[in-house]
């Protein structure tokens, strides 16, 4: 069932890569100031989950995980479509996409 290459790499390697990507995205969302970069980091977190999902699906021997990946991709696409629209509309109003300048709502 599991091909030799996969057996050498192993489930843990995939999980480590996924966890690394997830942490990278998470830290990026917290630290980066440019809205577009933040948005890319969010997508990175979704992709990390997708990698883990595909790996689990392969090693567990259930197909459902692979199917779920398609749902996640569709949802991510919807999120990007709405998100970029909001960013473009905001840029037209404020002429900036830097998070530190978007603080007009009262604290």
């Amino acid at each position, binding site marked *: 069932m599991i091909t030799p290459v996969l057996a050498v790499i192993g489930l843990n390697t995939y999980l480590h890569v996924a966890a690394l990507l997830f942490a990278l995205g998470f830290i990026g969302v917290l630290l980066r100031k440019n809205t577009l970069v933040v948005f890319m980091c969010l997508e990175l977190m*979704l992709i990390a989950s997708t990698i883990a999902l595909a790996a689990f699906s392969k090693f567990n021997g259930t197909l459902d995980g692979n199917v779920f990946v398609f749902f996640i991709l569709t949802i991510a696409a919807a*999120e990007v479509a709405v998100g970029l629209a909001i960013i473009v509309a905001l840029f037209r109003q404020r002429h900036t996409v830097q998070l530190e300048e978007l603080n007009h709502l009262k604290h």
Partner: protein
Amino acid sequence: MTTQTLQAIADTNEWWAIAPEMLLACSALALLVLEIVLPRAQHRFIPHFAFATQATIFILLVGGVYSEYEGLTTFGGLLQHSATGHVARVFFMLSSLLVCFLATICLPRTKMPRVEFYHILLAVTAALMLLAQSNHFVMFFVALETVTVGFYILVSYGRENALTLEAGLKYLVLGALSSAIMLFGIVLLYGAVGRVATFAGGVHNGFEFGTVANFLHQHPDNFLATAGALLVLGGVAFKIGAFPFQVWIPDVYQGAPTPVTAFLAVSSKAAGFAVLLTLVLNVFSPLQAVLVPVLSLMAAATIIFGNLSALTQRNTKRLMGLSGVSHAGYLLLGVTAALTVPWAAGAVWFYLFTYLLASMAVFGVMAYVGGPDDAGQELQHYEYLARNRPFLGGVLAVGVGSLAGIPPLAGFMGKLLLFVAAFQAHLYWLLAVAVGGVVVSIYYYFGWIKAAYFESWRPPGPKPEAPAPVPAAPSWVGVVTLTALALATVLLGFYQEPLTSWLQLK
């Protein structure tokens, strides 16, 4: 997988069981078609169509037309129709109707297109109803994301208002962050559970709620699964605005258009609690040793943070948001109690219904008081409200009084039930925090009533150059709706029998 298995799965598709959701989704599409087909002069009838469908579905649901499916699991285990799911459907339908009512007040003031608002509202409500009945993590995630993406659009609906867009962006970034965290949790649970073969030849996996619950029952100290469960709960905590995940609430509530703020405050929060109750009571219940301390700490921190940060607020929408955080804390107390006291789940729903009635009454008044720019609703705009518009002042007093938990009103009974449940569950220190929180909350809620009923002292001298706008007079629909909300709040304080027996509160 053989054709027989596929046939067996297809046989569990009970389309009639989800007829309300289908009807909502179809009428959402029909709204867009109507906008193209109808001549421009008749566009003002399109919201009436949305009202009519929602009222029909509401009556069908309350009439118990779909109760024959209760207890069934349909669509190959994707959905489970339970009594709680039915309560949630009625709740979301009622809330959606009231948001529609608020939209008819607020939307005409702006130049925004109207039909799309109702379209997204109906689609999101359908997804909320499915979310409350989901029994499978894929269904759960897809329904939740339909709700979330719909809310991104609704929050940033006034696309010519920079404040609204800023709120939309903040909601988008933090909402997507919480979704990603939750998704990672789901993936970890799926990986931990692995492949579970049954004797009958079927294969189960970690997406099914029942399978996850069984697995956790057998391996309550599995690290991967516990981490996954906590990540999923973190994502839900964002929806309800519980303590470490509440940062988005004040800004988003302030910037969003008032009907959307009401929708967020009531439906989105209730959805979070519906999901939380399902997950905590049915799926993650073997993890009690971890869950009880986590949930109690979260509840205590949420109550303290919500009440203290609401103390200094002058903007009414931020006030509603931050006091809503403290209400989420009281509800979390109920969820924690529900792990040991079964009737506490009904108490949570009772509280949500009282919160719905009171909040919608208050948001209705806010919709009339607010001008075209409703992000800047300050407490001083309420000055002379009781004198200029005594009706609105009365409704505001009833609504705010119920939120504060003043004795004869419904909010008091809601809080009492939750606190009795917490007492029976031996959560004494948490109960002390909650009672302290209620006392603090009276200060800021009464500040609002004071602003509406009593003149504040001003130094003698020239009058401020911009006097607050006199709020619009409510139409007859507004009078009827707000009267009904206020009356229901008062009556529910005296006589709870119909609601409690329906929620199976023993």
